[in-house]
């Protein structure tokens, strides 16, 4: 899959929950490489988990295996993590399946709230039949 930032480290997994740990291993490697602080690492790890689970749950309407790419881009003060998939048009943050009701937390709906809280910016685009969803975390060294 093409990307404007195709020199960034990236990993491609399938739309299967069992692949989630590969994303974590990739994050671990990038975090070690850039010396990421624990707090930022923990926030990103959770945001990645919630995003990935949302994508595999709702971006595909068939039973076929699909690729999901995750790119990692960092500069001095920000990290951008971009998810790219070729599923149906799906913006993880505008997911009508999940509305958080504070009195019914046992019914779910917390994932989106967590994604928004763990990251500073979230951006969704539909480009060439692909969902491109970017999480941004700002930090100071």
């Amino acid at each position, binding site marked *: 899959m093409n990307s404007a930032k195709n020199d960034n480290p990236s990993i491609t997994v399938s739309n299967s*929950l*069992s692949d*989630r*740990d590969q994303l*974590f291993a990739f994050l671990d490697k990038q975090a070690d490489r850039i010396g990421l602080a*624990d*707090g930022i690492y*923990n926030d990103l*790890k*959770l945001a990645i*988990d*919630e995003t990935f*689970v949302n994508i595999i749950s709702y971006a595909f309407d068939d039973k076929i295996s699909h690729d999901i790419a995750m790119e990692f881009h960092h500069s001095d003060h920000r990290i951008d993590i971009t998810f790219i998939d070729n599923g149906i048009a799906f913006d993880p943050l505008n997911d009508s399946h999940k509305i*958080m009701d*504070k009195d019914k*937390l*046992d*019914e*779910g709906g*917390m*994932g989106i*709230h*967590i994604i928004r*809280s*763990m990251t500073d910016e979230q951006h969704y685009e539909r480009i060439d039949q692909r969902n491109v969803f970017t999480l941004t975390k700002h930090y100071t060294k």
Partner: protein
Amino acid sequence: MSLSITITPESDHGKRISIAGSLDSNTAPQLQQSINEEIDESVDPTVIDFKDLDFLSSAGLRVIFKTKKIMDNSGGRFLLVNLQPQIKKVFEIIKALDGMHVFKDQDEMDDYLAAMQNKVKEGE
């Protein structure tokens, strides 16, 4: 990332569920099954010990809130103890610490339970 669950008795009628590792979409069903098997309205208190839990996502939170609901319905105490900072942060984001009994360590929980015990005795 896996989850290990250890269930031990807690005072006279309670149970302590110690969870270690990761509570997420993969492992939440495992905890839910344990809860289904172990927790009913006769259990008081239900303590969840997070000492060795490193990761918690919304799937895990959902199981915890389902358990809270059981305990609220039965009038039993539901106590969370030993949350690591990144775990506590997840609860705080959901602003769900209100109405939850969360203790930073075992000593704090023991003090609370002793105080509750004294209140019961004074009322007798």
